[in-house]
């Protein structure tokens, strides 16, 4: 495994106000890292430090084994910003050609246009595109550089459902090509689905770095819903059960540990039907984690 990004005790302060404190992180080649955190947590600051736009003091950032911001590092990195460029009087092709010419080893424009299904808009003026189309062009302007490390800031905002699906499909293709991707997004269900690991940034630090599955095992709360002719009282004292809602023959158990409760209902398995287990989503876990910290600030 090749290390692409290495943060060692990385700190950054705005004047005397600390934004990031003592961050450690290693990102490997081909990894997709979801970087999440509440507004103002310093996600973009962290990305700026990795790109060399800002300088960390104290601590260090290593990108591709060297200093961030060097020409060598820049030639391997591309960024899709949250705000799209709205330049007048240029077509999509002309816009993408500029970014191709800025790269050392760019992708072929025609290939990229086909891969990202931009054929319909490639000759249109950039200023007349819809929000979603402009987002696609911003993504194309980043990947045309053929990067080995790609930063995506709110990549799917303004995209319709179909475009989002195609977008994430393309990101998975990049994963197979060993491209490392760092994504920040408020659409946490997308991060949950695509990221190999999730880093939650809050109160200057990473409050969690790991896989979604590991995070989920820490948050075992969930709901078990099923239909049964049995009385609801039978389930009240099962391990983990906190509340029971009954709607005709459908019972919904809220459990503090869905695994434990599931094991406990096995004796009734012949008499229950249509069992649905809902574990907590990343979004609800994220909200819980950030809500816990809220009173401090």
């Amino acid at each position, binding site marked *: 495994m090749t290390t692409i990004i290495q943060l060692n005790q990385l700190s950054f302060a705005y004047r005397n106000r600390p*934004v990031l404190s003592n961050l450690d992180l290693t990102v490997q080649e081909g990894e997709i890292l979801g970087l999440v955190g509440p507004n103002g947590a310093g996600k973009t600051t962290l990305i700026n430090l990795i790109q060399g736009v800002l300088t960390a003091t104290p601590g260090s950032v290593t990108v591709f084994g060297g200093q961030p911001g060097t*020409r060598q590092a820049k030639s391997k990195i591309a960024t899709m910003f949250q705000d799209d*460029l709205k330049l007048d*009087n*240029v077509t999509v092709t002309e*816009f993408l*050609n500029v*970014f191709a010419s*800025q790269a050392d080893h760019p992708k072929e424009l025609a290939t990229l246009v086909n891969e990202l299904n931009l054929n319909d808009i490639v000759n249109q003026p950039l200023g007349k595109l819809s929000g979603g189309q402009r987002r696609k062009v911003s993504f194309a302007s980043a990947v045309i550089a053929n990067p080995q490390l790609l930063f995506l800031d709110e990549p799917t905002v303004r995209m319709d459902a179909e475009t989002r699906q195609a977008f994430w499909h393309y990101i998975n293709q990049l994963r197979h090509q060993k491209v490392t991707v760092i994504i920040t997004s408020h659409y946490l269900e997308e991060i949950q689905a695509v990221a190999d690991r999730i880093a939650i940034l809050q109160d200057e630090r990473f409050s969690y770095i790991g896989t979604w599955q590991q995070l989920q095992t820490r948050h075992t709360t969930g709901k078990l819903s099923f239909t049964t002719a049995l009385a609801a009282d039978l389930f009240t004292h099962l391990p983990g059960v906190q509340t029971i809602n009954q709607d005709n023959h459908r019972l919904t158990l809220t459990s503090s540990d869905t695994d434990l409760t599931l094991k406990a209902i096995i004796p009734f398995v012949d008499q229950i039907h249509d069992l649905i287990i809902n574990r907590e989503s990343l979004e609800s876990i994220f909200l819980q984690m950030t809500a816990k910290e809220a009173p401090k600030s």
Partner: protein
Amino acid sequence: MKSLLTQISFNAKRIFLRNPGYLFFTILMPIGFFVLFTKVLISGTAPEKLQFAQNYLGSMIVYSILINALFGLAQIMQSDRHQQLLLTLSLTAKGTKPYYVSLAIIMSVVNIFSVICLELVARFTSNVQLTVGEATSVTLIAVIGTLPLMGLGVLCSFVKSPQSVSVLSNLIVFPLAVISGLWWPLSVMPNWAQTIGKMTPTYMTSQMINHAIHQQTLPMHDMMGIAIWAVGILMALVIILILIKKGGEVRNDHATAQ
């Protein structure tokens, strides 16, 4: 080189070739003023009219450059910085150098084109006859005189909002045009205004152009004045860039940590 050529093509199209407003303000408006003041709002004998047209040609050349620098360059760069085009380019392998060089080339070409257009209009409407050598000298002086004005345009581009840069450009262009005698002869103004006017880079450039048109030796004090202005504005730019670099982290962090 490919990057530079691509950016020259890209910037020329979006700034100039597909932008009729820009074409109007930088080239057609000075031509319009020239025709208006040399053909319509003028009286006197034929030699007096020719003398006025020769002097007014220099004024309108400088006015065109001034408009290009402050309404063109300043607003383009401000908009590109505001939209993060410059930040985006700075993160690429080849950085922002091709962008800046392409802008310098395009602005020079636009200025030269504007000077040639004015020279041709002056020739065909007011019979201002310039030899190829004189026309070339005038064009070269205009390009050199561009430097402090372009620097002024770059300085204005650091203003934060597009509205502010527009207001600032207006506040500089029109008073500067008036006080340096581009619209009316400096001699009709009070002494104090003349003293100030003679210290402006626009007056110095128009004086040098007038000397070239009249086949006179270029005034050394105006050449020195242009050089001093160019160095002064360059120093101001360097100071601003250092301050931006120092304060950049502050602003960037402040903006991104919101």
